[in-house]
């Protein structure tokens, strides 16, 4: 797992890009990166998962935890997912009804 914390902005959203496998090994790194952004005062964080080629329930748990902590901080989190495999796992767990999900990072900025 490789996290790009300075993946730029899309509109007024800060972008955090994850690359690799969101599992029991990789996901904690994403959790820490999200927490750092929220503690730094970011209020709109887009998690770009375009580079994630594997996700399991541990990765999903970190995404759910990130959303929960964002809401507690009165912040917003959205997901950018382009990989069909990742979307399939999200949909099986009905998390497409919990998260705001985009299939294109440029579309995130368009919502600003």
């Amino acid at each position, binding site marked *: 797992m490789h996290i790009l914390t300075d993946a730029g902005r899309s509109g007024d959203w800060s972008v955090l890009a994850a690359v690799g496998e969101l599992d*029991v090994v990789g996901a904690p790194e994403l959790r820490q990166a999200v927490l750092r952004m929220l503690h730094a005062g970011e209020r709109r964080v887009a998690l770009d998962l375009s580079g994630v080629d594997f996700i399991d329930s541990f990765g999903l748990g970190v995404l759910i935890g990130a959303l929960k902590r964002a809401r507690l901080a009165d912040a917003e989190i959205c997901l950018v997912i382009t990989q069909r495999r990742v979307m399939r796992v999200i949909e099986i767990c009905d998390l497409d009804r919990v998260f705001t999900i985009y299939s294109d990072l440029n579309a995130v900025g368009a919502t600003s």
Partner: protein
Amino acid sequence: MTVADDPGADVVDVGFRPGKLLLEIPARVEFVSLVRVVVAAVAELQPNLDKDRIEDLKVAVSEATTNAIEAHGLSGSIDRIHVRCFVADDEVSVVVHDRGFGFDPDAISELPPPESPERLAHEAGLGVRLMTKLADESEIRSSPQGTDVRLVVYTSTRSAQVRKRPS
């Protein structure tokens, strides 16, 4: 003896016969991705298994293996996790065995609806759901001596036969 004292703590044992593979891994999370890679490679030996089903199997096996490692962590066991793969004419099956304290699969509670605020309280608990949904067959046998999780995916031919069969 602790894991640190065990000279074989980093060693993975592999046994292979045509159509069968046994992988023994130390109960540590850094070996989960290795299990996924090996299981996928074995599954590819079955030419009639769709690529998507191999990906489904990888996620399901990842769940079972992560749970097994956690079970050994909770019980303090330094035994290895056993992962067995079988390639048959119309299916690929995987059995993940741990020697943890076991658990009651029926005691896993239903998740709140996705729209419910309480849903965000459940950061864990999706693993069994994923195994059930992604595998064509999934079975958990657990006792105080350990747990066996069996996961099966069907070839496209068998899947078509199952769909045709009247319910």
